């Protein structure tokens, strides 16, 4: 097989960082070549070089054996490279057709040929099994479909090489399966794919070859049948990683959080949580499993005081906290790791130190008589940065400068270092690499062992299965079953999450 794409000795410096250090990489026709590495390993830098967004300091790129120079995305598109960015490059108010033709518009009679392009989009979507409706606005379609639009966008530009940057980070498990099906369909028709990820299971499931990067360098290239998860994890992180959470059986004691017949409306005024009752006891982890969009965010927002419920009761350590604002709930003893760390977890423009005291700044020792005690905050921040291994040169860096994993560690540090009795962790490891996941899982288990009640919401079945002691399955706004984690199987959970054997009255 020939190499459709090959890079040799790519080196790229950023101020203070060597992002790519003599990287060699090649891609064969019709293969899925996974590029695996932790956040900050240099995967995205390499891909941005291949897409013409960055210029390498040194090194060469070959397309079908011919050397090429890529000065801008235009050059990359011209030689058949298409990229699907981790954050989609779609314009929400444009239709699918408009997004696809943007930059490569087809004109008929002096006017944008919307009809022609839309027919072509349909043709492409049928050819590769990518179901999309060309006429709808992008803001009205789910993330999984937006990703298909991105893929069609590259195919419309006749891409033969597809770069998928962390494509599964934003997808539900069903959407991931769908994406894999599409990827296989694409490669069977001659498209070559570079699949960037840090998820071990996914590369083993889909990749033909796996190249692992660490700290800007290529560690090695392997095939899925000569490796396994622990081996890959060790290559990525540079040490042995414990992938399975090690924990003792739970010793639950008194009830900390009790939810009784809770009803909550969503943004559109529809009932998203429809009569939920459960309780979490001290010293146990209750996992809530469910496909996205079954009322989990509304439930969490209601418990944390961010959304008013319609009816029902929430009791925290004997206090009625139904529809109370967040501060009193926090003061009674709740910690919350929110689903969207950038929107709800952090003030991104604030320094790390300020984010670390975001819910305690007004209390001594940080706030004394209206005055912020910078010295106390400084000491506290430095301690947490060390304890939680937040990688930053200074506590006064804007939090937006940190990588996703380190941002999450800031939240975890803030939420876990207060003395609380309840931890609500919503997708605590979304988008993080194995090293960080291992770390956060350990922290959550140690909170449980200290007698904290933990409510864990996660879309990752593996995470729920390995962390939770009991699992509540949420389907269409109701809890359809509560299972013991060690007495259930993934397939049983999957079926319940899909609503099997449940009759839900509207």
């Amino acid at each position, binding site marked *: 097989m020939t190499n459709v794409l090959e890079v040799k000795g790519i080196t790229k410096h950023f101020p203070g960082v060597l992002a790519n250090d003599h990287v060699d990489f090649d891609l064969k026709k019709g293969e899925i070549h996974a590029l695996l590495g932790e956040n900050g390993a240099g995967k995205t830098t390499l891909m941005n070089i291949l*897409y013409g*967004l960055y210029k390498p300091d040194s090194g060469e790129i070959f397309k079908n054996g011919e050397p090429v120079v890529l000065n*801008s*995305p*235009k050059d990359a*598109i011209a030689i058949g490279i298409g*990229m699907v*960015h981790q954050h989609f*490059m*779609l*314009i*929400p*108010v*444009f239709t699918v057709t*408009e997004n696809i*033709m*943007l*930059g*490569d*518009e087809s*004109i008929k009679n*002096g*006017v*944008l040929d919307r009809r022609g392009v839309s027919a072509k989009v349909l043709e492409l979507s049928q050819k590769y099994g990518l179901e999309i409706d060309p006429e709808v606005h992008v803001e009205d379609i789910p993330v999984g479909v937006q990703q298909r639009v991105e893929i069609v*966008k590259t195919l419309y530009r006749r891409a033969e090489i597809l770069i998928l940057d962390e494509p599964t980070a934003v997808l539900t498990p069903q959407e991931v399966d769908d994406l894999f099906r599409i990827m296989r369909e694409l490669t069977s028709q001659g498209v070559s794919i570079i699949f960037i990820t840090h998820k071990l299971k996914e590369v083993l499931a889909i990749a033909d070859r796996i190249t692992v990067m660490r700290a800007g360098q290529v560690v090695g290239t392997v095939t899925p049948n000569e490796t396994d998860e622990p081996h890959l994890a060790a290559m990525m992180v540079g040490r042995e990683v414990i992938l399975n959470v090690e924990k003792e059986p739970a010793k639950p004691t008194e009830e900390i959080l009790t939810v009784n017949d809770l009803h909550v409306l969503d943004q559109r005024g529809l009932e998203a949580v429809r009569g939920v009752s459960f309780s979490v006891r001290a010293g146990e982890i209750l996992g809530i499993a469910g496909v996205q969009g079954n009322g989990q965010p509304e439930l969490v927002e209601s418990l944390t005081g961010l959304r008013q419920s319609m009816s029902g009761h929430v009791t925290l350590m004997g206090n009625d906290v139904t529809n109370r604002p967040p501060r009193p709930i926090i003061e009674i003893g709740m910690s919350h790791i929110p689903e969207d760390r950038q929107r709800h977890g952090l003030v991104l423009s604030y320094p790390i130190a300020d984010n670390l005291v975001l819910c305690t700044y007004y209390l001594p020792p940080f706030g004394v008589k209206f005055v912020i005690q910078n010295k106390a905050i400084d000491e506290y921040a430095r301690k947490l940065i060390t304890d939680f291994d937040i990688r930053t040169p200074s506590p006064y860096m804007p939090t937006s400068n940190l990588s996703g994993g380190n941002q999450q560690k800031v939240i975890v540090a803030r939420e876990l270092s207060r003395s609380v009795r309840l931890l609500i962790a919503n997708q605590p490891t979304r988008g993080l690499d194995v090293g960080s996941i291992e770390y956060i899982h350990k922290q959550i288990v140690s909170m449980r062992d200290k007698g904290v009640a933990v409510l864990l919401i996660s879309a990752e079945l593996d995470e729920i299965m390995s962390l939770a002691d009991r699992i509540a399955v949420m389907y269409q706004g109701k809890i359809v079953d509560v299972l013991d984690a060690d007495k259930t199987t993934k397939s049983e959970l999957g079926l319940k999450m899909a609503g099997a054997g449940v009759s839900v009255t509207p």
Partner: protein
Amino acid sequence: MEFKRFAFIALIIIVLIGVVVVVGKSEVAPSVIIVSMIATTISVATPLTLGALTGVFCERAGVVNIGIEGMMLASAFFGWFAAIYMNTILEMGALPSLIVGVIAAVVTGGLLGLLHAVLSVTFKVDQIIGGTVINLMAVGISGFLNRQLFFEKQSIFGGQVPHAPGVLPRIHIPFLADIPVVGTIFDQQPITIAAILLVFITHYVLFYTRWGLRTRSVGEHPLAADTVGINVYWMRYMNVIIGGLIAGLAGAYFTLESVPSFEPLMTNGRGFIALAAMIFGNWSPFGSWAAALVFGAAQALQINLQFFRELIPPQWAFLQSSAVVGMVPYVLTMLIMTGIIGKTRAPAADGTPYEK
């Protein structure tokens, strides 16, 4: 939603015209009053329509332009100066002088657009501050040069304001302007007609051409536009300059079409009202035009009520005061900007400099 917006606009215009009809009906036939009000409304809405289109081009490309007022004022002055210079020093004759004046005004607007683009796109100056600089500069330069050129003995005009070449003549649109009674509405001056044509052209350009699609893309999500090979800076530059050219035409309206004179500060906040019209019109050409017509109608009310001063009934005595009636456009601006009817939606990247 959009229907509600246009219905609300129509309602305000009808009410404003109705006030004049009720006051004047004992002396002039209602049909004549209505036609006259509509004709005046269309004419006085011209700088607002053009100003709003300036805003549409700039902001659809992601650059907030609050310098429309200053662009208009400076263009009004330089257009007027060019016309007078051609007429009195070069003795080109009235109409050619006026045409040169319009060109000078448009060029002035374009240059100020270029300045705004340099400040906000290249140097990433806060766009509100950039626009304010243009507004302040226009007031200073037009006021200073006005005094130096026309009121100083050593100036080229010898210390006297020379004879102006008059205003642009009306264009008699065949057939339409010949219709009895209603025909008056179509008997308009060239910049007014150009403004209406520009509304249609802008709509076509924005929504049916490659240029428009790319313009809107850099105003919504410049990074996405960049990744498909669109030059964000170039698109923003060109659209802000196009906006400036249109603001220049609006400036020409003041001194070459409306009245044959220049006064310091004569744009009188119209650039800001135009901005309000653009927002109320939800950044769309037709919406902006409709909103501009509302403000035009409020001004037409002021103009037409003067003819019926004595007829105003005593319980409506406040309408006799031109100061009170003159406030109507500004009060309307405030009311409309409170968002009485529905939310508008700005381009997502409006006002945000693009950093590579």
